[in-house]
């Protein structure tokens, strides 16, 4: 019997073996990249060592951190707008049938329109400043929030609502103290997805706004990338920006997962 168990269970790995297996391919690829860049003999070709230099440079003169904070600020405010509107409408649509019937066609017809597709209108209406970027972020974050809230509210276990009504709990209290907490998992999932697309959208929006404003404009990490792409043609700096965008996205995701665990201790 023990032989069956051992044959099914994967062999235990030492920590060092695990570390080697997890890092081998990335390290080899970076090595190949470095060698290739040296052989190319072009001072502007991106190489790992030059990317690191560029990163230190950009952090030292403060531009990278400022741009990242600018972008994050827009994401957070755009997300906040979407959160308020999306959750409010989501609760309404999830709990009142006729509201859902009225709004569903509009939601469904705008949903397939990608956030970037409204960029031209956003720039024409709001110019090349923060409001344009903000509106695109809010638009992008709105749909995951709305749809997940609707889903969460309409999936609430009916028994819980009935149980509350047999305890003399008013309809309003049932909404705030049964329906809302019961749909919290969906709302938080929607928030995490919304924050993800909001971060993607802000980079694209800033790139677009940056292009329109000729690199001046309103800053942010997307605009910074545009400047490196269109004016300085600094590939190393662009790679630095790419990595920063990725790391920030990862951190946002982890933060939301952490918040989910803290806000819903009953779900562990």
């Amino acid at each position, binding site marked *: 019997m023990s032989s069956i168990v051992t044959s099914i269970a994967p062999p235990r790995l030492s920590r060092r073996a695990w570390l080697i297996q997890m890092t081998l391919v990335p390290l080899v690829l970076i090595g190949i990249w470095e060698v290739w860049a040296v052989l190319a003999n072009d001072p502007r070709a991106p190489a790992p060592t030059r990317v690191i230099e560029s990163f230190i440079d950009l952090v030292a003169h403060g531009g990278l951190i400022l741009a990242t904070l600018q972008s994050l600020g827009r994401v957070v405010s755009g997300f906040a707008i979407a959160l308020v509107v999306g959750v409010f409408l989501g609760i309404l649509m999830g709990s009142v049938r006729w509201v859902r019937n009225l709004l569903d066609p509009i939601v469904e017809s705008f949903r397939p329109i990608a956030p970037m597709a409204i960029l031209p209108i956003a720039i024409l209406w709001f110019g090349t400043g923060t409001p344009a970027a903000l509106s695109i972020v809010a638009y992008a974050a709105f749909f995951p929030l709305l749809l997940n809230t609707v889903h969460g509210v309409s999936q609430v*276990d009916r*028994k*819980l609502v*009935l*149980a*509350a*009504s*047999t*305890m*003399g*709990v*008013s309809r309003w*209290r049932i909404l705030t*103290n*049964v329906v809302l*907490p*019961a749909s*919290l998992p969906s709302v938080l999932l929607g928030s995490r997805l919304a924050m993800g697309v909001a971060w993607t959208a802000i980079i694209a929006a800033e790139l677009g706004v940056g292009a329109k404003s000729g690199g001046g404009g309103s800053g942010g990490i997307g605009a910074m990338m545009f400047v490196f792409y269109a004016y300085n043609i600094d590939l190393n700096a662009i790679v630095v920006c790419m990595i920063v965008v990725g790391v920030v996205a990862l951190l946002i995701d982890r933060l939301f997962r952490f918040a989910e665990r803290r806000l*819903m*201790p*009953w779900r562990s």
Partner: protein
Amino acid sequence: MMNNANGKPKLRLQDVSKEFIAPRTGQLTTAVTGVNLEIQNGEFICVVGPSGCGKSTVLNLIAGLDNPTTGRIEANGAPIRGPGADRGVMFQDYALMPWQTVYDNIGFGLRYGTPGEGLSSNEREQRVRHFIDLVGLNGSEKKYPHQLSGGMRQRVALARLLANGPDILLMDEPLGALDAQTRLILQVELLRIWGETGDREQRKTAIFITHDIEEAVFLGDRVVVMSTHPGRVKAVIDIDLPRPRTEHIRANPRFGQLAERIWGLIRDEAYRAIDGKGGVQPAATTTTEMAH
């Protein structure tokens, strides 16, 4: 029959029926029909019957969670218009709020509903504490429902029901998920909490659904026997066993006779339910079948 002082029944069901329309097929199903019952203040009524006899439907109608298709239901002489804290319900699957601890679940009605009106937070806390003690949940106050065994969840649901201080207790197989020993202990507990040892006027009115015939005989003043196709009341049996009842009453020959009699009333249908899956039952169930 046991009438209280003014002779008015606590609950009256007059010719009650309930039909459901299946959402997809539009097929009409009669859940229960022709239910007539008068329940006096302080009575403990048990309802038994095979699955599908509409036991839970009747309970939901009394709770006000559903409206009867025909007939009248009155509590304290007034027709029932909707759910209310005067009729507490203990659901089959407990319906505990998963995001709340044991303590908060038991205090839910006191905190958010009408039962807590006019109580100070101190009084509420005392009341919750009292019922935590009563059902033996000390030490588990901070646990969440998913951390509890089925038996403990049922205790939480029972404590919540009682903490709201309802006039009428509606219980849908509340002891169903317990192991046999715990169940016997809680049956005695339930009778104590209901007020068996005290003054008859002080007792709550209880309707208790079960499919355990011995449990029904042990607990009830009367046992309502229901049958299926369509759901209806087949018989109402008086349980003339003395109170307070203890475990020893099961050795009383009268106890055996009563259980035997009730079993006789539902035996055929119970057997048919087991081996009759293929041979679906009488035509009166649905209108579409009747049309044939």
